[in-house]
């Protein structure tokens, strides 16, 4: 009550009411209601799952060292790619981009003290480790084999493991739905006074579109998996052709979620890029409204394109035509975003921080993934490319080169806010280049392997290698370079651990950024904002003073990157 009364136009009392931080280890770090702590929980959990799913990826690559399968049985290989895909999609990327990043950044950027329903937020985090354990417990039941899409009827052969798989992903679906709902309400209702829709930072626009999809699409996934679970356990014939069911029905139900899912991955990354580019190019984002509205357009259109995953899978020709056209249409808003980002770079004063390197790497790899998406969206071309390594290459460019790269850009960018220390720029540059080179060298050759005829999910490719002897070379090439990504992620992890103790103190605003989270201390206090700030413009006008009133701290009206950064020195231990 005490501080807020002095400020004019603060609005009403609830904004001045600050809860005391919780006491005790359990309330503080385990069952915490604080969005920042929950974000760290998501982050650590996601990274642990990434360790497992990533090591499966390396096992997959090692298996493909020889055409005949170098290290494991076909059965084991099938489990590897199934769990790799499942875990990467639902236990790594979605928790990281919505759970960790969204939870940490979103309430800070809209000037809120927490999300709308902190208790639900805690619940949706704690569902995740349970779901993860359930997923990995499929190994005890013989393993799930049918790929991350888990198409029946083949997935029904997995028995208990398949049912457990459904249960695990059903739980993740519940968790995502709750998060989406929570974020929707938070963004609609809890923005700081004066932050109108067109004054929101672009990350918030992206989070809003993501939350919208999370809330609606994920329930469809849960339904599909519920139906599959019923078929597993109670033999209910939704998908069994012998009793009138249809395997194609599952594909519809599954992709109705899983196409929006790829936008759930990528939109937060779009948001991150839209934040990082203007800060390090030191100029306003180009085409704010176009970027913001194209996020929404993508979110809405993404519900109407799912069947492009099913062109050869048994849908009528007229459906193929319709979905091809809508899929092409979604290329337009995506293109607008990319062009606007490039225009943001034009005539900037570009600082090559680690975050900026990742953001620019994102522009290149994501654009490439988007273009191969155009190839796959065309029905005739898809008839050739479907089910091959071309598809594998495409979605790794979009998910790893897009969503993950965006997330990797976000880590060095918001790390100082989260911990109060800057990460080592030198290690950061190394980890960027290792990742960028390793990533492209691993996935780029997959394009032509796929076009030449290498189908995906093959534990051995003897017949293909007989016809295309260079396939062995390229697979070994990919395997070697895929380990660069491992080194890069390891270095990143080490950088994060090292910098907690040895990183340079970050101060309130090391990057000279202008969104609200950079006006409070690093790490943010429990209540985020002692006084809720008032917003009277967009955060991107570098030539104008900061558009906020009522800030907690004394900060420059024209924030600049800290001198540490301007010299771009390698950060030394103990500095």
């Amino acid at each position, binding site marked *: 009550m005490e501080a807020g009364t002095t400020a004019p136009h603060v609005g009403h009392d609830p904004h001045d009411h600050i809860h005391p931080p919780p006491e005790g280890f359990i309330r503080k770090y385990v069952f915490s209601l604080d969005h920042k702590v929950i974000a760290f929980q998501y982050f650590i959990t996601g990274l642990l799952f990434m360790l497992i799913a990533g090591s499966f990826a390396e096992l997959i690559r090692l298996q493909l060292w020889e055409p005949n399968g170098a290290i494991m049985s076909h059965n084991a290989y*099938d489990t590897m790619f199934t769990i790799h895909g499942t875990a990467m999609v639902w236990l790594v990327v979605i928790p990281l981009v919505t759970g960790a990043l969204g939870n940490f950044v979103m309430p800070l950027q809209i000037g809120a003290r927490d999300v709308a329903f902190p208790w639900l937020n805690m619940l949706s985090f704690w569902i995740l480790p349970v779901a993860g354990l359930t997923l990995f417990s499929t190994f005890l039941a013989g393993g799930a*084999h049918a*790929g991350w899409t888990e198409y029946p*009827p*083949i997935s029904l*052969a997995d028995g208990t493991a398949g049912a457990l798989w459904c249960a695990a992903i059903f739980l993740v679906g519940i968790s995502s739905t709750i998060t989406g709902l929570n974020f929707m309400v938070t963004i609609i209702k809890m923005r700081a006074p004066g932050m109108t829709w067109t004054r929101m930072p672009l990350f918030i626009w992206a989070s809003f579109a993501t939350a919208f999809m999370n809330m609606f699409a994920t329930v469809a996934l849960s339904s599909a998996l519920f139906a599959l679970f019923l078929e597993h356990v109670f033999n209910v014939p939704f998908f069994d052709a*012998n009793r009138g069911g249809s*395997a*194609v029905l599952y594909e519809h139900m599954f992709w109705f979620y899983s196409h929006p899912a790829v936008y759930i991955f990528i939109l937060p990354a779009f948001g991150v890029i839209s934040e990082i580019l203007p800060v390090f*190019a*030191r100029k306003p984002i180009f085409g704010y409204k176009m970027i913001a509205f194209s996020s929404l357009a993508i979110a809405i259109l993404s519900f109407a394109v799912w069947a492009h995953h099913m062109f*050869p*899978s048994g849908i009528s020709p007229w459906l*193929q035509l319709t979905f*091809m*056209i809508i899929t*092409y249409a979604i290329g*337009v808003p995506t*293109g*607008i975003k990319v062009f606007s980002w*490039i*225009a943001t770079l*034009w*005539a*900037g*004063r*570009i*600082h*090559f921080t680690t975050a900026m390197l990742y953001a620019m790497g994102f*522009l*290149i790899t994501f*654009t*490439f993934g988007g*273009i191969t998406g*155009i*190839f796959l969206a*065309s*029905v*005739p*071309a898809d*008839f*050739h490319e*479907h*089910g091959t390594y071309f598809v594998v290459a495409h979605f790794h460019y979009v998910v790893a080169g897009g969503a993950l790269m965006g997330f990797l850009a976000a880590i060095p960018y918001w790390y100082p806010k989260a911990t109060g220390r800057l990460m080592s720029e030198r290690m950061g540059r190394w980890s960027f280049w290792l990742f960028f080179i390793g990533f492209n060298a691993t996935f780029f050759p997959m394009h*032509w392997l796929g076009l*030449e005829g290498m189908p995906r*999910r*093959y534990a051995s490719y003897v*017949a293909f290698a007989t016809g295309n002897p*260079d396939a062995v070379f390229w697979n070994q090439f990919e395997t070697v370079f895929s380990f660069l990504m491992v080194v890069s992620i390891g270095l990143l992890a080490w950088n994060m651990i090292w910098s907690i103790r040895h990183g340079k103190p970050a101060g309130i605003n090391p990057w000279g950024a202008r969104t609200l989270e950079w006006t409070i201390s690093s790490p943010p206090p429990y209540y985020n904002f002692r006084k809720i700030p008032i917003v009277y413009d967009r955060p991107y*006008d570098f*030539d104008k*003073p*900061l558009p906020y009133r009522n*800030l907690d701290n*004394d900060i*420059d*009206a*024209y924030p*600049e990157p800290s001198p540490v950064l301007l010299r771009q020195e390698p950060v030394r231990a103990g500095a």
Partner: protein
Amino acid sequence: MAQTTAPQPQQIGPKGMGPGFWPYTIALTVLNVIFALLILFAPLDFIMPGWSHPVTDRAADIDGLFKFMSVFGFAIFCYVAGYVAYFAIVFRRRPGEPAGTIGVVVHDAPKLEFWWTVIPSVLLVILTGLSIVVWYKIQFGTGAPALTMEVIGHQFYFEYRYPGLKGSVYSQTDAMHLPIGKPVRILITSADVIHQFWAPEIRLKAAAVPGLVQNLNFTPTAPGTFDVACSEYCGVDHSVMQGKLVIESADKFEKWLAAQKQRAAAGAHPIPLARGNAASGKALFAQKCSACHAIAPFDKKIVGPGLAKLTDDPQHPTLVTGKSPTRDHIAEILENGYTGPIGAMPNRQANGLSDQNIADLVAYLVSLK
């Protein structure tokens, strides 16, 4: 609360678009034109050595579409990556620049935005139009088929059925044959799980979905022997679910079909089960059956059920076909294969079993107590 005052930042910007912008743009454009000419007029297998030669009329259409898409795709990527790299170099912050400098403040350029929305849209409309043309040809463009054949996916082989041929042709033992110059319709379905029929050289693929018949229509144009692969995950041996496709002249095709008919007519004779040898059956089991079956109780499944105590386990008769598992019944499954609630098993042609092999296996299986 009160923000400390700092001097207003100074904008640093280039004259025009930036040093060397237009020559660079022209260079990118020239690169694009060269690429476009190369890809439109050179054969694809010249650019990509492993690119398989199209052997049907539809495959050629798809390759044409692919070339156009490559031109557009390369152009977009070339400009995006090209300008990212160029701006990164030209507009980098120079060392020693005063602290407060910022880039040029531009929020919008409606004209530019209009064009970069319209041009990609037009490109996409063109690509959609081209795709629709090829799509139409694929779906409706092939005339009345001179040959209609069926492909049935099984775990883990393709079964081919030809009109007038009483038996089937199996992908493990024999190739699929198609005649040159005749419109073909391939009907595709599955007996168990979802498979996908694909030969890279014909470019088209279709999922074999249980309970659903899909079709592919085209006219083969060039001879040769090509790989057929299953491209939808279908189980443990998905990656060895391979076959061969032989495209040959209509005469040769007719000869091949006649030979198949003769072979089918000569088949069908009783198998001498009494002459079975359990010892060679055991060796054969290890070689042909042990990938899917263990010598274990019935419910210890690998792909198929465990086969210990085949004749005295009470679970067997109820779960298989209601018959008590006699020698004849085991032989029948080995001969015809099995498709049902507990899975699917290939038949003798698919497994490559001779009469004597079957007799040996039966002798071995009934000897397991």
